[in-house]
C-alpha cells in the first residue's frame, strides 16, 4: 500500500496553506494514519510551525532535490514527521531548470518513503514555479486553500490552468480533491457570496466547514505545534478534523 500524496497549492500567499497542511496532517494522525509533511517553500514556514529553526538545519529538501540525497536522511520527527526546508531552497529553482526530468525530482525522492506512510502532504510555495510543479507532479491530488475574497478567488482560475498543464505534461492522473475556505468571516456577506460561488464556478468540491479566522492558529505556530494539540477544543481544530475525515474517505472531484 503506497501513500496518498496530496499537494496543498495556491500561488497566492497568506491563504493558510501551511496552517492547512499542518492541521490536516495532525488531524489525519489523530485518525491513526501515518503522515509525512513535506515543506517545499523556501520560507520554511511549515518547518518553523513544527518548532524547528530553519536556519539551524544542515540538510533539507533542497539537498534531496538538488544533490539527490535520500529523503529519509532529512526527515525530522516532530508532532508530524516533516521534510524541512529553508532559504537554501530558493537556489534550487535555478539549478533544477537546467536538469532533464526536473518536474519529477520530488516524485523520485518520495518513492523511497511512500510505503512507510499513509499520507504525504506537500506544502507548495506561493508561486507557479518549478517547486510547485514538482509538488503537483509528485501528488495524486491537490487541495486548494482559499481566502473567501474576490482577489483570492481570481487566482483559482490561474491555478486550475496550471493544473491542466501539469496533467498535459507530467501527471495525467492529478485530481482536485477540493477547496478549503480559510480565514472565513461568516459575518461578512462578501465572504458568504464568494464561498457560495467558488464551487459552482470552478466545478470543484468545497470542504466544510470553512476555517474561521482566529489568532489561535498564529499562537500555535509560534510554539511549534498544530492547532489540534495547542487548542484541541478550538472550533478551528474541529473544522480541520472534519476536513481530514472528508479527505480520508476520499471525496474527490476530477
Amino acid at each position: 500500500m503506497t501513500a496518498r500524496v496530496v499537494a496543498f497549492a495556491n500561488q497566492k500567499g497568506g491563504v493558510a496553506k501551511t496552517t492547512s497542511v499542518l492541521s490536516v496532517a495532525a488531524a489525519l494522525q489523530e485518525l491513526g494514519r501515518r503522515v509525512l509533511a513535506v515543506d517545499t517553500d523556501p520560507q520554511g514556514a511549515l518547518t518553523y510551525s513544527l518548532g524547528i529553526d530553519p536556519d539551524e538545519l544542515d540538510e533539507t529538501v533542497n539537498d534531496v532535490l538538488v544533490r539527490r540525497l535520500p529523503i529519509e536522511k532529512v526527515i525530522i520527527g516532530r508532532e508530524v514527521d516533516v521534510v524541512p526546508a529553508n532559504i537554501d531552497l530558493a537556489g534550487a529553482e535555478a539549478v533544477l531548470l537546467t536538469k532533464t526530468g526536473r518536474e519529477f525530482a520530488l516524485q523520485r525522492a518520495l518513492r523511497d518513503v511512500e510505503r512507510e506512510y499513509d499520507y504525504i502532504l506537500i506544502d507548495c510555495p506561493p508561486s507557479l514555479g518549478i517547486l510547485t510543479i514538482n509538488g503537483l507532479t509528485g501528488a495524486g491530488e491537490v487541495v486548494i486553500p482559499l481566502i473567501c475574497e474576490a482577489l483570492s478567488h481570481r487566482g483559482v482560475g490561474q491555478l486550475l490552468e496550471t493544473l491542466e498543464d501539469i496533467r498535459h505534461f507530467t501527471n495525467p492522473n492529478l485530481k482536485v480533491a477540493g477547496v478549503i475556505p480559510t480565514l472565513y468571516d461568516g459575518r461578512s456577506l462578501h465572504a458568504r457570496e464568494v464561498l457560495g460561488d467558488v464551487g459552482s464556478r470552478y466545478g470543484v468540491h468545497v470542504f466544510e466547514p470553512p476555517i474561521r479566522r482566529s489568532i489561535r492558529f498564529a499562537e500555535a505556530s509560534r510554539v511549534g505545534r498544530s492547532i489540534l494539540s495547542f487548542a484541541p477544543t478550538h472550533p478551528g481544530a474541529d473544522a480541520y478534523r472534519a476536513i481530514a475525515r472528508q479527505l480520508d474517505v476520499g471525496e474527490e472531484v476530477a
Partner: protein
Amino acid sequence: MSVEERGKYALYSVAERRPLSCSVECSNCREETRVSYLELAALMFPIHFHVPPPLKYHHSWFRCPACGERTWLRIHLDR
C-alpha cells in the same frame, strides 16, 4: 507560440523532448538524462538485461549516461 507560452513551457523538461529520444533514470546516481534512441542502443552495447517493469522500478541494466556505471535504470519513453 506566444512569449507567455514559451516562458511557461520552459518550466517543463518534457516540453524539450526531441523526436526519437527518451529519458533514462539511474538507480545509482539518481540523475535523469535525455538520450536519442541511437545513444540508448550504444549504452546497451554489448550487454544489457531487462525485467518486466511491474517487477522492478529500475527495470533495465546497462550503462548510465550520467555516471557511466553499469547499473539498473528506468527508461521513460514518454519523457
